[in-house]
């Protein structure tokens, strides 16, 4: 039996769907959510000697469940069965839902938070509780544990190579990426859970570490609301879900703890606070950022086979800083049959004619960097009648302009790398042969429902800062300004987007905050 299997069958791991009575739980620290923020916090605090309880709404899957088939996995591993969108359905939201959270299904790209972003937070958002230098030792520890390393040019698949080569030819800055994998077999299925445990997600690192150190995990347990009394959280109430996570079983749970940590990720974390009547003067849920992305399909004479190899291994931040305009970065997107069929415009024979050229297709995206311009306030999380969250994210003129500009640069890069034909993903696509047709791109319909816009990076909604009138949690240890024992530790605390894929930023900040919490708690 592998060590992972031993941990999975530990008595400290409880399947909430199987509970035959309501659960009453106690711990020093209760952590809601087991993604990048929750898992790192749990491992850090459990190792410091605190009794830790992790709660997770999703299922506890293992590599054996990751069949490399969208049919078996997507509905189970993503929020809302992969149907989550913004309120007007204009932006598709890819967000994980499982023990390990989005780290189970992300594409393994790792960046430290850019130093200038941390500086921006300090100057503009009053984040004075830490400096970039304070994060460095935590990044280093995470890099070691998750085997984060830069990939070589030679290991890139053609989809990423085209991005790298196209940018290089144009003189644009581009580099290979750092990935959290060890002994990666290049199966290409990061998006559906790593079938061979090569991806060092939370599922195979920090969660086992936490359980090894004595932490308890209850999965299929959805946190509903905190009971707040006299400036602190007294307890948490929640609902146990069935084995597929679709319906309540009729059983409930209650947690009493000295300290609570919300790590449900952007969108879910602010929703839990809102359901609990904690709105921080109307700030909770606001300033939610998405890195909204638009894509471009390029067709080459040679085979690209974008389904094979590491999904992402190159990125260009050449257009990240555009002054008054919204910047963006360029990355590749892996090909899975259903995912890319849905992204390819049209229906019937017209759709089929394009989609069957997939072996020759490369797919790249321009990922916009939202949150740095005063006239781009981001989105706002509100609650549905049922209490489930919904995110309103209006796409304003500035963002449409960035999409338009990014679309042109994508096509330029793809032609520079040798593409014969480039197609935008508009429902009425702009089809270009040989060179970029900027006028045609300008003339395309830039409006909701006329082209797919998506996000795999959700940030904000519980902004950190040191002014309680403009932020939800203080930056020093991510504790709510107004509640003595409630922390928010996940991507929702970022005051802006990051301009890079977010997982490592969450790991590093979570480790810093948890280390400070452990020190302040003075156990051992």
């Amino acid at each position, binding site marked *: 039996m592998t060590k992972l299997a031993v941990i999975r069958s530990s008595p400290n791991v409880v399947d909430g769907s199987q509970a035959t009575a309501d659960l009453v739980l106690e711990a020093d620290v209760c952590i809601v959510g087991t993604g990048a923020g929750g898992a790192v916090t749990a491992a850090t605090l459990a190792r410091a000697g605190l009794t830790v309880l992790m709660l997770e709404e999703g299922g506890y899957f293992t590599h054996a469940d990751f069949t490399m088939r969208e049919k078996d996995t997507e*509905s189970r591993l993503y929020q809302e069965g992969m149907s989550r969108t913004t309120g007007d359905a204009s932006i598709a939201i890819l967000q994980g839902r499982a023990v390990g959270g989005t780290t189970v299904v992300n594409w393994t790209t790792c960046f430290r938070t850019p130093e200038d972003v941390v500086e921006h937070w300090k100057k503009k958002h009053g984040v004075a509780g830490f400096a970039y230098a304070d994060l460095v030792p935590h990044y280093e520890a995470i890099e070691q544990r998750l085997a984060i390393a830069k990939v070589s040019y030679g290991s890139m698949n053609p989809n990423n190579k085209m991005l790298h080569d196209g940018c290089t030819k144009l003189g644009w800055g581009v580099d290979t990426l750092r990935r959290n994998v060890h002994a990666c077999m290049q199966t290409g299925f990061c998006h559906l859970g790593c079938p061979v445990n090569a991806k060092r997600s939370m599922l195979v690192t920090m969660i086992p570490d936490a359980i090894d150190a004595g932490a308890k995990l209850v999965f299929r347990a959805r946190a509903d609301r905190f009971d707040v009394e006299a400036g602190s959280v007294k307890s948490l109430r929640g609902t146990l879900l069935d084995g597929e996570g679709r319906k309540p079983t009729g059983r409930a749970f209650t947690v009493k703890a000295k300290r609570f940590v919300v790590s449900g990720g952007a969108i879910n974390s602010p929703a839990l606070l809102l359901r609990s009547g904690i709105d921080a003067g109307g700030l909770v849920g606001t300033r939610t950022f998405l890195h909204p992305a638009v894509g471009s399909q390029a067709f080459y004479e040679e085979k690209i086979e974008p389904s094979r190899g590491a999904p992402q291994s190159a990125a260009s931040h050449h257009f990240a800083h555009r002054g008054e305009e919204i910047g963006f970065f360029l990355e590749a997107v892996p090909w899975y049959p259903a995912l890319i069929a849905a992204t390819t415009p049209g229906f019937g024979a017209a759709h089929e004619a394009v989609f069957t050229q997939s072996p020759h297709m490369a797919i790249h995206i321009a990922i916009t960097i939202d949150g740095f311009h005063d006239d781009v306030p981001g989105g706002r999380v509100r609650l549905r009648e049922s209490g489930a969250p919904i995110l309103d994210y209006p796409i304003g003129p500035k963002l449409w302009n960035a999409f338009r500009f990014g679309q042109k640069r994508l096509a330029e890069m793809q032609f520079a790398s040798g593409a014969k034909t480039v197609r935008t993903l508009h429902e009425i696509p702009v089809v270009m042969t040989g060179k970029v047709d900027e006028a045609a791109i300008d003339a395309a319909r830039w409006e909701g*429902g006329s082209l797919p816009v998506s996000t795999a990076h959700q940030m904000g909604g519980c902004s950190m800062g040191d002014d309680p009138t403009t932020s939800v949690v203080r930056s020093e240890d991510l504790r709510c300004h107004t509640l003595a024992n409630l922390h928010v530790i996940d991507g929702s605390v970022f005051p802006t987007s990051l301009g890079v894929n977010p997982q490592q930023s969450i790991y590093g900040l979570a480790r810093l905050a948890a280390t400070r919490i452990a020190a302040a708690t003075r156990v051992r």
Partner: protein
Amino acid sequence: MPTSRRRFLRNGLVGGGLLALGGVSLAFYPSKEVGVPTEPLAALEARSFQVLVALVSRVVTAKGANPVAIAHGVDRSLSYALPETQEAINKLLGLFENALPGLLLDGRIKPFTRLSPESQDAVLESWRTSRIELRRNGYQALRKLALTAYYMEESSWGPLDYQPPPSLRAIAYDDSQVGTPEWLRARAEGDTP
């Protein structure tokens, strides 16, 4: 992808107003049964299923595609969505079928399920390029559900030159076949894989 409930409610109100103006017979023009469910439905209503089968027949025209099977695939996927989303998709399919808004916006007097394939394509085209965002997003939601359900099935992958990946379960279970010697050493030393 699902469209927001608020939009559907607003649309429902508009539809209600039109009904009051005397469009009852058009709005309740019965759907044609175009496919018989082969298993119980988890998220879709019976009428929605019929509309979906008709729609899938036009969205997925690949040789060998089975619209009833695809519609069941959509139903299974939707069973994991929020109840609000399931409700929204049922309403959207009702709206798609409904001849009354169809008459006003597309000039048709029959429900979608009763139209010829060419007329059904014209309806899809009209939603696809509509000036009304609700229609464009509605078209996208239904189109994506249909295509996703079809291309999730291995039987659809032949023309894509895409081979189903072999199961790696045995490899992953058998540590000796995973990765590099460094990997194996790390595991022997008790490092969690």
